[in-house]
Protein backbone atom coordinates (compact mmCIF):
# COMPACT_ATOMS: atom_id res chain seq x y z
CA UNK A 1 0.00 0.00 0.00
CA UNK A 2 1.26 3.47 -0.84
CA UNK A 3 1.40 6.40 1.57
CA UNK A 4 -1.32 8.17 -0.37
CA UNK A 5 -3.69 5.22 0.04
CA UNK A 6 -2.91 5.24 3.77
CA UNK A 7 -4.16 8.82 4.00
CA UNK A 8 -7.21 7.70 2.03
CA UNK A 9 -7.96 5.19 4.78
CA UNK A 10 -7.46 7.95 7.35
CA UNK A 11 -9.98 10.11 5.47
CA UNK A 12 -12.51 7.27 5.44
CA UNK A 13 -12.03 6.84 9.18
CA UNK A 14 -12.58 10.55 9.83
CA UNK A 15 -15.82 10.56 7.83
CA UNK A 16 -17.12 7.51 9.73
CA UNK A 17 -16.18 8.94 13.12
CA UNK A 18 -17.70 12.30 12.31
CA UNK A 19 -20.95 10.71 11.14
CA UNK A 20 -21.13 8.66 14.33
CA UNK A 21 -20.66 11.76 16.45
CA UNK A 22 -23.27 13.64 14.46
CA UNK A 23 -25.84 10.92 15.16
CA UNK A 24 -24.97 10.04 18.76
CA UNK A 25 -23.93 13.30 20.44
CA UNK A 26 -26.92 15.20 21.82
CA UNK A 27 -25.23 18.58 22.35
CA UNK A 28 -25.51 20.79 19.23
CA UNK A 29 -21.96 22.13 19.60
CA UNK A 30 -20.72 18.54 19.55
CA UNK A 31 -22.76 17.99 16.40
CA UNK A 32 -21.06 21.02 14.82
CA UNK A 33 -17.67 19.56 15.78
CA UNK A 34 -18.64 16.18 14.34
CA UNK A 35 -19.85 17.82 11.14
CA UNK A 36 -16.50 19.58 10.78
CA UNK A 37 -14.81 16.21 11.26
CA UNK A 38 -16.80 14.79 8.32
CA UNK A 39 -15.73 17.83 6.35
CA UNK A 40 -12.06 17.24 7.18
CA UNK A 41 -12.40 13.64 6.00
CA UNK A 42 -13.98 14.68 2.71
CA UNK A 43 -11.30 17.32 2.14
CA UNK A 44 -8.66 14.71 2.82
CA UNK A 45 -10.22 12.45 0.15
CA UNK A 46 -9.83 15.37 -2.26
CA UNK A 47 -6.23 15.67 -1.11
CA UNK A 48 -5.62 11.99 -1.88
CA UNK A 49 -7.13 12.39 -5.35
CA UNK A 50 -4.98 15.51 -5.89
CA UNK A 51 -1.82 13.70 -4.78
CA UNK A 52 -2.51 10.78 -7.11
CA UNK A 53 -2.83 13.27 -9.94
CA UNK A 54 0.74 14.50 -9.49
CA UNK A 55 2.07 15.32 -12.96
CA UNK A 56 3.88 17.94 -14.99
CA UNK A 57 6.38 18.62 -12.25
CA UNK A 58 3.71 19.42 -9.64
CA UNK A 59 3.35 17.53 -6.38
CA UNK A 60 -0.39 17.24 -6.91
CA UNK A 61 -3.27 18.21 -9.15
CA UNK A 62 -3.91 21.91 -8.35
CA UNK A 63 -7.64 21.79 -9.21
CA UNK A 64 -8.79 19.59 -6.29
CA UNK A 65 -6.38 21.50 -4.02
CA UNK A 66 -8.03 24.79 -4.96
CA UNK A 67 -11.44 23.18 -4.41
CA UNK A 68 -10.37 22.18 -0.89
CA UNK A 69 -9.28 25.76 -0.13
CA UNK A 70 -12.69 26.99 -1.29
CA UNK A 71 -14.32 24.25 0.75
CA UNK A 72 -12.42 25.12 3.93
CA UNK A 73 -13.48 28.75 3.70
CA UNK A 74 -17.12 27.86 3.11
CA UNK A 75 -17.02 25.29 5.94
CA UNK A 76 -15.78 28.04 8.24
CA UNK A 77 -18.62 30.35 7.19
CA UNK A 78 -21.17 27.58 7.79
CA UNK A 79 -19.64 26.80 11.21
CA UNK A 80 -19.75 30.45 12.22
CA UNK A 81 -23.42 30.69 11.20
CA UNK A 82 -24.28 27.47 13.04
CA UNK A 83 -22.52 28.66 16.20
CA UNK A 84 -24.35 31.99 16.05
CA UNK A 85 -27.70 30.19 15.66
CA UNK A 86 -26.90 27.95 18.62
CA UNK A 87 -25.87 30.85 20.85
CA UNK A 88 -29.05 32.70 19.94
CA UNK A 89 -31.13 29.61 20.76
CA UNK A 90 -29.40 29.37 24.13
CA UNK A 91 -29.90 33.09 24.77
CA UNK A 92 -33.60 32.86 23.91
CA UNK A 93 -34.58 29.64 25.68
CA UNK A 94 -31.74 28.97 28.15
CA UNK A 95 -31.43 25.52 26.64
CA UNK A 96 -29.49 24.02 23.76
CA UNK A 97 -31.81 21.13 23.04
CA UNK A 98 -33.06 20.64 19.51
CA UNK A 99 -36.20 18.76 20.58
CA UNK A 100 -39.37 20.76 20.09
CA UNK A 101 -41.12 19.24 23.15
CA UNK A 102 -37.89 19.42 25.24
Amino acid at each position, binding site marked *: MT*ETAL*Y*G*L*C*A*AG*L*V*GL*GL*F*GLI*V*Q*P*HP*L*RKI*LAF*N*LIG*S*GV*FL*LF*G*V*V*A*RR*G*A*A*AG*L*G*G*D*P*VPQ*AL*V*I*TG*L*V*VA*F*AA*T*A*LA*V*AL*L*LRLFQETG*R*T*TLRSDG
Partner: protein
Amino acid sequence: MAFDIVLVLLVIGVAVWTIAARDTFAAVIGFVALGLLLTLVWVRLAAPDVALTESALGSGLTGGLLLGASARLACSEATASDEEPGAILQLIAAVLCALMSAGLVALVLLLPQPAPTLAPQAVANIAATGLGNPVTAVLMAYRAIDTLLEVVVLLLALVGIWSLAPDRVWGGLPGPRRHADPNGLLTFIAQLLVPIGILVGIYIFWVGSVAPGGEFQGATILAAMWVLASMAGLVDAPSVSGRRLRLMLAVGPAVFFAIGLTGFATAGAFLAYPEAHAKALILTIEVPLTLSIAATLALLVAGPPERASGR
Protein backbone atom coordinates in the same frame (compact mmCIF):
# COMPACT_ATOMS: atom_id res chain seq x y z
CA MET B 1 6.26 5.35 5.58
CA ALA B 2 6.82 5.00 9.34
CA PHE B 3 6.17 8.72 9.70
CA ASP B 4 2.90 8.42 7.80
CA ILE B 5 1.71 5.52 9.95
CA VAL B 6 2.44 7.42 13.17
CA LEU B 7 0.71 10.51 11.80
CA VAL B 8 -2.40 8.62 10.66
CA LEU B 9 -2.69 6.81 14.00
CA LEU B 10 -2.36 10.13 15.81
CA VAL B 11 -5.01 11.77 13.61
CA ILE B 12 -7.46 8.91 14.18
CA GLY B 13 -6.72 8.89 17.91
CA VAL B 14 -7.36 12.61 18.29
CA ALA B 15 -10.50 12.31 16.16
CA VAL B 16 -11.82 9.60 18.48
CA TRP B 17 -11.08 11.90 21.42
CA THR B 18 -12.94 14.76 19.75
CA ILE B 19 -16.03 12.60 19.33
CA ALA B 20 -15.88 10.68 22.61
CA ALA B 21 -14.63 13.24 25.18
CA ARG B 22 -17.13 13.88 27.99
CA ASP B 23 -16.48 17.58 28.24
CA THR B 24 -17.32 19.84 25.29
CA PHE B 25 -14.37 22.13 25.99
CA ALA B 26 -12.00 19.14 25.94
CA ALA B 27 -13.55 18.00 22.66
CA VAL B 28 -12.93 21.43 21.12
CA ILE B 29 -9.30 21.27 22.20
CA GLY B 30 -9.11 17.88 20.51
CA PHE B 31 -10.52 19.45 17.36
CA VAL B 32 -7.87 22.19 17.37
CA ALA B 33 -5.14 19.58 17.86
CA LEU B 34 -6.63 17.64 14.94
CA GLY B 35 -6.38 20.72 12.75
CA LEU B 36 -2.70 21.14 13.60
CA LEU B 37 -2.07 17.47 12.76
CA LEU B 38 -3.99 17.73 9.49
CA THR B 39 -1.61 20.56 8.55
CA LEU B 40 1.19 17.99 8.66
CA VAL B 41 -0.93 15.61 6.59
CA TRP B 42 -1.42 18.27 3.90
CA VAL B 43 2.32 18.88 3.76
CA ARG B 44 2.84 15.12 3.35
CA LEU B 45 0.31 15.18 0.50
CA ALA B 46 2.44 17.89 -1.19
CA ALA B 47 -0.32 20.50 -0.84
CA PRO B 48 1.33 23.41 1.00
CA ASP B 49 -1.40 25.85 -0.07
CA VAL B 50 -4.01 23.71 1.66
CA ALA B 51 -1.69 23.25 4.66
CA LEU B 52 -1.54 27.02 5.05
CA THR B 53 -5.33 27.31 4.87
CA GLU B 54 -5.87 24.41 7.26
CA SER B 55 -3.49 25.76 9.91
CA ALA B 56 -4.84 29.31 9.71
CA LEU B 57 -8.54 28.74 9.11
CA GLY B 58 -9.41 25.11 9.85
CA SER B 59 -7.50 25.03 13.11
CA GLY B 60 -6.80 28.60 14.20
CA LEU B 61 -9.83 30.72 13.47
CA THR B 62 -12.39 27.88 13.71
CA GLY B 63 -10.74 26.85 16.98
CA GLY B 64 -11.05 30.36 18.41
CA LEU B 65 -14.70 30.52 17.37
CA LEU B 66 -15.60 27.13 18.87
CA LEU B 67 -13.63 27.75 22.08
CA GLY B 68 -15.54 30.97 22.65
CA ALA B 69 -18.85 29.25 22.00
CA SER B 70 -18.11 26.29 24.28
CA ALA B 71 -17.13 28.63 27.11
CA ARG B 72 -20.44 30.48 26.73
CA LEU B 73 -22.42 27.26 26.64
CA ALA B 74 -20.57 25.63 29.56
CA CYS B 75 -23.61 25.63 31.84
CA SER B 76 -25.85 23.97 29.25
CA GLU B 77 -24.08 20.61 29.19
CA ALA B 78 -26.08 18.99 31.96
CA THR B 79 -29.37 19.59 30.14
CA ALA B 80 -28.15 17.88 27.00
CA SER B 81 -26.50 14.82 28.51
CA ASP B 82 -29.76 13.07 29.40
CA GLU B 83 -30.77 13.08 25.76
CA GLU B 84 -28.05 10.67 24.77
CA PRO B 85 -29.48 7.84 22.68
CA GLY B 86 -29.66 4.32 24.13
CA ALA B 87 -27.01 1.63 23.76
CA ILE B 88 -28.82 -0.22 20.96
CA LEU B 89 -29.25 2.93 18.92
CA GLN B 90 -25.57 3.78 19.45
CA LEU B 91 -24.59 0.30 18.29
CA ILE B 92 -26.71 0.56 15.15
CA ALA B 93 -25.21 3.97 14.41
CA ALA B 94 -21.70 2.61 14.94
CA VAL B 95 -22.32 -0.29 12.55
CA LEU B 96 -23.79 1.97 9.88
CA CYS B 97 -20.93 4.46 10.18
CA ALA B 98 -18.38 1.64 9.99
CA LEU B 99 -20.11 0.45 6.80
CA MET B 100 -19.86 3.98 5.43
CA SER B 101 -16.14 4.07 6.22
CA ALA B 102 -15.65 0.64 4.66
CA GLY B 103 -17.36 1.86 1.49
CA LEU B 104 -15.03 4.86 1.34
CA VAL B 105 -12.01 2.61 1.91
CA ALA B 106 -13.11 0.42 -1.00
CA LEU B 107 -13.50 3.56 -3.09
CA VAL B 108 -9.99 4.77 -2.21
CA LEU B 109 -8.45 1.39 -3.01
CA LEU B 110 -10.34 1.10 -6.29
CA LEU B 111 -9.48 4.56 -7.63
CA PRO B 112 -8.68 4.37 -11.37
CA GLN B 113 -5.12 3.74 -12.55
CA PRO B 114 -3.57 5.88 -13.93
CA ALA B 115 -5.15 8.68 -11.93
CA PRO B 116 -6.94 11.36 -13.96
CA THR B 117 -5.31 14.76 -13.58
CA LEU B 118 -5.66 18.32 -14.77
CA ALA B 119 -2.14 19.25 -13.70
CA PRO B 120 -0.66 19.26 -17.27
CA GLN B 121 -3.41 21.61 -18.51
CA ALA B 122 -2.96 23.84 -15.47
CA VAL B 123 0.78 24.09 -16.11
CA ALA B 124 0.41 24.49 -19.89
CA ASN B 125 -1.74 27.61 -19.58
CA ILE B 126 -0.18 29.20 -16.54
CA ALA B 127 1.99 31.56 -18.58
CA ALA B 128 -1.17 33.30 -19.82
CA THR B 129 -2.14 34.24 -16.26
CA GLY B 130 1.27 35.67 -15.37
CA LEU B 131 1.17 33.72 -12.08
CA GLY B 132 3.69 31.22 -10.77
CA ASN B 133 1.51 29.29 -8.34
CA PRO B 134 -0.85 26.87 -10.11
CA VAL B 135 -3.29 26.79 -7.17
CA THR B 136 -3.65 30.57 -7.25
CA ALA B 137 -4.07 30.32 -11.01
CA VAL B 138 -6.97 27.89 -10.51
CA LEU B 139 -8.56 30.13 -7.86
CA MET B 140 -8.14 33.45 -9.63
CA ALA B 141 -8.21 32.55 -13.32
CA TYR B 142 -9.38 29.07 -14.37
CA ARG B 143 -12.16 28.80 -11.80
CA ALA B 144 -12.52 32.46 -10.85
CA ILE B 145 -16.32 32.14 -10.76
CA ASP B 146 -16.04 29.66 -7.87
CA THR B 147 -13.95 32.14 -5.92
CA LEU B 148 -16.34 35.01 -6.66
CA LEU B 149 -19.31 32.95 -5.48
CA GLU B 150 -17.37 31.81 -2.43
CA VAL B 151 -16.80 35.41 -1.35
CA VAL B 152 -20.51 36.02 -1.82
CA VAL B 153 -21.24 32.97 0.36
CA LEU B 154 -19.03 34.49 3.08
CA LEU B 155 -20.99 37.74 2.90
CA LEU B 156 -24.32 35.87 2.99
CA ALA B 157 -23.21 33.99 6.10
CA LEU B 158 -22.34 37.32 7.71
CA VAL B 159 -25.76 38.74 6.80
CA GLY B 160 -27.30 35.62 8.31
CA ILE B 161 -25.38 36.11 11.56
CA TRP B 162 -26.21 39.80 11.77
CA SER B 163 -29.90 39.09 11.29
CA LEU B 164 -29.85 36.99 14.47
CA ALA B 165 -29.50 40.19 16.53
CA PRO B 166 -32.43 41.05 18.81
CA ASP B 167 -34.40 44.19 17.88
CA ARG B 168 -33.01 46.44 20.58
CA VAL B 169 -29.39 46.00 19.44
CA TRP B 170 -30.17 45.86 15.72
CA GLY B 171 -27.23 47.26 13.76
CA GLY B 172 -25.22 47.59 16.97
CA LEU B 173 -21.79 46.34 18.00
CA PRO B 174 -20.89 42.64 18.10
CA GLY B 175 -19.64 40.96 21.27
CA PRO B 176 -19.14 42.27 24.79
CA ARG B 177 -16.89 45.29 25.31
CA ARG B 178 -13.52 44.21 26.63
CA HIS B 179 -11.32 46.67 28.42
CA ALA B 180 -7.57 46.49 28.07
CA ASP B 181 -5.50 46.21 31.21
CA PRO B 182 -2.57 48.50 30.32
CA ASN B 183 -0.12 46.49 32.42
CA GLY B 184 -1.73 43.13 31.70
CA LEU B 185 -0.01 40.17 30.14
CA LEU B 186 -2.65 39.80 27.46
CA THR B 187 -2.16 43.40 26.36
CA PHE B 188 1.56 42.76 26.09
CA ILE B 189 1.05 39.58 24.04
CA ALA B 190 -1.34 41.33 21.70
CA GLN B 191 0.94 44.33 21.25
CA LEU B 192 3.80 41.96 20.51
CA LEU B 193 2.11 39.47 18.20
CA VAL B 194 -0.37 41.59 16.26
CA PRO B 195 2.23 43.65 14.33
CA ILE B 196 4.24 40.51 13.53
CA GLY B 197 1.07 38.75 12.50
CA ILE B 198 -0.01 41.57 10.18
CA LEU B 199 3.41 41.45 8.54
CA VAL B 200 3.19 37.66 8.12
CA GLY B 201 -0.35 37.96 6.74
CA ILE B 202 0.69 40.49 4.11
CA TYR B 203 3.73 38.38 3.24
CA ILE B 204 1.62 35.23 2.79
CA PHE B 205 -0.82 37.14 0.60
CA TRP B 206 1.93 38.73 -1.48
CA VAL B 207 3.93 35.55 -2.00
CA GLY B 208 0.76 33.76 -3.19
CA SER B 209 1.20 34.72 -6.83
CA VAL B 210 4.45 32.77 -7.19
CA ALA B 211 4.57 30.38 -4.21
CA PRO B 212 2.09 28.72 -1.84
CA GLY B 213 -0.02 31.36 -0.12
CA GLY B 214 -2.67 33.72 -1.34
CA GLU B 215 -5.55 35.96 -0.44
CA PHE B 216 -7.53 33.50 1.70
CA GLN B 217 -4.56 32.47 3.82
CA GLY B 218 -3.29 36.03 4.23
CA ALA B 219 -6.77 37.34 5.03
CA THR B 220 -7.28 34.62 7.65
CA ILE B 221 -4.12 35.66 9.48
CA LEU B 222 -5.15 39.31 9.37
CA ALA B 223 -8.57 38.36 10.75
CA ALA B 224 -7.00 36.25 13.50
CA MET B 225 -4.82 39.19 14.52
CA TRP B 226 -7.87 41.45 14.72
CA VAL B 227 -9.62 38.87 16.90
CA LEU B 228 -6.52 38.66 19.12
CA ALA B 229 -6.42 42.45 19.51
CA SER B 230 -10.13 42.49 20.35
CA MET B 231 -9.72 39.67 22.89
CA ALA B 232 -7.07 41.81 24.57
CA GLY B 233 -9.41 44.81 24.49
CA LEU B 234 -7.08 46.85 22.31
CA VAL B 235 -9.69 47.41 19.63
CA ASP B 236 -13.46 47.48 19.83
CA ALA B 237 -15.73 45.95 17.22
CA PRO B 238 -17.19 48.50 14.81
CA SER B 239 -20.93 49.11 14.59
CA VAL B 240 -22.24 46.75 11.94
CA SER B 241 -24.37 49.50 10.41
CA GLY B 242 -21.37 51.77 9.85
CA ARG B 243 -20.98 52.89 6.26
CA ARG B 244 -17.20 52.51 6.19
CA LEU B 245 -17.42 48.92 7.41
CA ARG B 246 -20.08 48.03 4.85
CA LEU B 247 -17.91 49.55 2.14
CA MET B 248 -14.91 47.52 3.27
CA LEU B 249 -16.93 44.30 3.19
CA ALA B 250 -18.34 44.96 -0.27
CA VAL B 251 -15.37 46.45 -2.11
CA GLY B 252 -13.61 43.12 -2.80
CA PRO B 253 -16.51 41.24 -4.38
CA ALA B 254 -17.61 44.44 -6.18
CA VAL B 255 -14.21 44.98 -7.81
CA PHE B 256 -14.04 41.28 -8.66
CA PHE B 257 -17.48 41.41 -10.29
CA ALA B 258 -16.75 44.65 -12.14
CA ILE B 259 -13.50 43.34 -13.61
CA GLY B 260 -15.32 40.12 -14.44
CA LEU B 261 -17.88 42.13 -16.42
CA THR B 262 -15.21 44.03 -18.34
CA GLY B 263 -14.03 40.59 -19.44
CA PHE B 264 -16.99 40.57 -21.89
CA ALA B 265 -15.53 43.59 -23.68
CA THR B 266 -11.82 42.82 -23.49
CA ALA B 267 -11.62 39.03 -23.71
CA GLY B 268 -15.06 37.87 -24.81
CA ALA B 269 -16.30 36.13 -21.64
CA PHE B 270 -17.30 36.79 -18.04
CA LEU B 271 -14.24 36.75 -15.75
CA ALA B 272 -11.87 36.37 -18.70
CA TYR B 273 -8.73 38.46 -18.62
CA PRO B 274 -6.93 39.86 -21.68
CA GLU B 275 -3.62 38.05 -21.77
CA ALA B 276 -1.41 41.15 -21.73
CA HIS B 277 -2.92 42.50 -18.50
CA ALA B 278 -3.88 39.27 -16.72
CA LYS B 279 -1.45 39.60 -13.83
CA ALA B 280 -2.17 43.30 -13.24
CA LEU B 281 -5.94 42.64 -13.26
CA ILE B 282 -5.63 39.66 -10.91
CA LEU B 283 -3.60 41.80 -8.51
CA THR B 284 -6.17 44.62 -8.75
CA ILE B 285 -8.81 42.11 -7.69
CA GLU B 286 -6.73 40.45 -5.01
CA VAL B 287 -5.81 43.49 -2.92
CA PRO B 288 -9.37 44.70 -2.14
CA LEU B 289 -10.54 41.08 -2.02
CA THR B 290 -8.03 40.27 0.75
CA LEU B 291 -9.24 43.28 2.72
CA SER B 292 -12.89 42.27 2.33
CA ILE B 293 -12.26 38.61 3.19
CA ALA B 294 -10.25 39.57 6.28
CA ALA B 295 -13.02 41.89 7.50
CA THR B 296 -15.72 39.28 6.79
CA LEU B 297 -13.86 36.47 8.57
CA ALA B 298 -13.15 38.64 11.62
CA LEU B 299 -16.81 39.69 11.87
CA LEU B 300 -17.96 36.08 11.42
CA VAL B 301 -15.97 35.26 14.57
CA ALA B 302 -17.26 38.35 16.38
CA GLY B 303 -20.86 37.16 15.94
CA PRO B 304 -24.16 39.03 15.94
CA PRO B 305 -24.53 42.50 17.49
CA GLU B 306 -25.00 42.43 21.26
CA ARG B 307 -24.78 46.11 22.19
CA ALA B 308 -26.73 49.05 20.81
CA SER B 309 -24.51 51.47 18.97
CA GLY B 310 -23.81 54.72 20.77
CA ARG B 311 -25.44 57.03 18.28
